[in-house]
């Protein structure tokens, strides 16, 4: 890895939820994140409903969500979370294969500030995540 990883105390390590309908992508991202040893918990979900369930059952600092999910668009999750006090501090990273003009507008309107376009490299992913969580 060409990125310098910061040192984080165990108690401060963040938790990440990954939602993508492509299981292999979820596992890939999970493996990359776990290899850095910077996260206390990395959980995967294959659609928006399961993602919402997991969000309610546990504490997360970051949600990495695919734009095109089988049941809902990724932005829906973001909008739902914004309405709830519990998820006030939750950060989102949208990953997507293709965004045309119309969907870009939806993304902007939902308040998502961070987008990663597929395919991305491991380094791209890690540095983006670190940037969003303001680590290192």
């Amino acid at each position: 890895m060409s990125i310098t990883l910061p040192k984080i105390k165990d108690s401060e390590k963040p938790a990440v939820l990954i939602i993508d309908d492509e299981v292999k992508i979820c596992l890939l991202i999970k493996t990359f994140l776990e290899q850095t040893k910077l996260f206390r918990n990395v959980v995967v979900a294959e659609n928006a409903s399961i993602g919402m369930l997991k969000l309610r059952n546990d504490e997360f600092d970051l949600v990495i969500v695919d734009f095109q999910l089988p049941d809902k668009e990724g932005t829906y999750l973001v909008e739902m979370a914004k309405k709830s006090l519990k998820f006030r501090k939750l950060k989102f990273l949208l990953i997507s294969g293709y965004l045309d003009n119309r969907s870009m507008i939806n993304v902007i309107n939902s308040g998502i500030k961070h987008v990663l376009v597929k395919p991305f490299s491991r380094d791209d992913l890690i540095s983006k995540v670190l940037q969003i969580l303001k680590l290192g």
Partner: protein
Amino acid sequence: MNFEILDSLFEPIVIVNKDNEIVYYNHMFSTFTKSSPRIIKNKKYLREIIATSFLSDMVELIFKTESATISKEELIDSLPDQEIHVIIKGAFLSEQSLVMISFNDITIEKNLYQKYRYQIDELKEIHHQIVQADKLSTIGEITASISHEISNPLTIASGTLELIKALFESDDLNSQKELLDSCLNDVIESFMRINNIIKGMKKFLHGNEDKKEYVAIEEIIENSTRLVNSQLKKSQVNLSVKNNTESNESIIYVNSLKMEQLFINLIKNSIDSINSTNGESDKSIQITLNETAMCYEILISDTGAGIPKEIQDKIFESFFTTKEVGEGTGLGLAIATKIIESYQGTLELLSPIAPTTFKITIPKMSTLSIASSTLNRDNDQEMNLNILVIDDEVKILNLFNESISSNNINVICASNPTEALNLIDDGRFNIIFIDYSMPEMNGDELAKKVRKLNYKGPIIYLTGKATDSKIKNDISSGLFNDHLLKPFNKEDITSIVKKWELGVK
């Protein structure tokens, strides 16, 4: 008998006796033949007015058989300034021993047919182009979901490769063997997914590939010139064809209707160019057929007005035209270029004036059929059978192509031995069929040459007769392995291929 009643008919009618003398003619006949009573008065015989032989033959026949008859479509070009297409009906008047002939002028129908057939073909082409354009915009619309589809397997593949790289950097590689294995499978599977997505797109875009067949250029030229014949006559343009190739059958693998359209477009342009000169001098179009080692070349020259420098680059563009509205869509050369390029050929302006010459090149049949089968090959199929057919008869080549061409069987054809030997040289064939009686070389000679090139697979003769003893000898000597008796049909071909296909496996 009072024939005056015939004057009230709109059909030209003339009545002759056994000696071909005109006994009576109606008013319409005078108009039809553009001969006033003064002129007809001076002539005794019908053949002096209408000089065509089929007419006198028909009259003779009616007198002989004493029964009515109707001709097929015939051409009368002996009348001043006109070329008329007619159907003639003759009736026998038994009482007076006379024959009554009436003419049905179908010239206009025929001209209209040719005219509208061309326009409809052009419309079809435009429609096809619009459908294509529409397809392309649809592609644009589904790009979103396709991009998503491809991006996932691409992400998996690239991400997994990074994992693999990391694994290699770890100390204990052996314990990771299983993981490595599954990673590699993931990568391979991802790329196959991407491949399938792209294949699907390609199929959609190129949905209706036109049916191609083996056909001789000479036949295409003949058909095309026949279709524009009335326009040539009308503009008094002389068209000549010069064939500089060795044989009379220069075979190519194309869709013949599209090629005819190509030639018609070019010839019509030439006619228009000549008409615009208003000159008295030489009005002619010359079509020349040449051949090189790899291609056929067709030159179309005319003595027309030429193409000015300013527009020489533009003439091949879609919708560029110098003609009036309604006289041409401007798609002629653009369409022609598309057609020829789809056969890996070229169309260029060789000389802009005196004479204006366009040059068409088209690869010889063998080259084209290899290219075509390469593009259509399904790489997923385990077994790709390559079959070479060497025969100079267009019918047989098409028969082979239609009976066994499929996703995993490629039929390559050659119409002469030299071409064939060039193809065999790069060693790709599983079965070779040889026509025993070709003009340049007989089957045995060719088979010997083929064996010399180290081809060890089965050689099958296509022959009209089978001499048992000769066959036994040749088979045992290994020169050839089997034979197919002419005439043969599709079933014969499929079963003999099946028989030898197992041997190849």
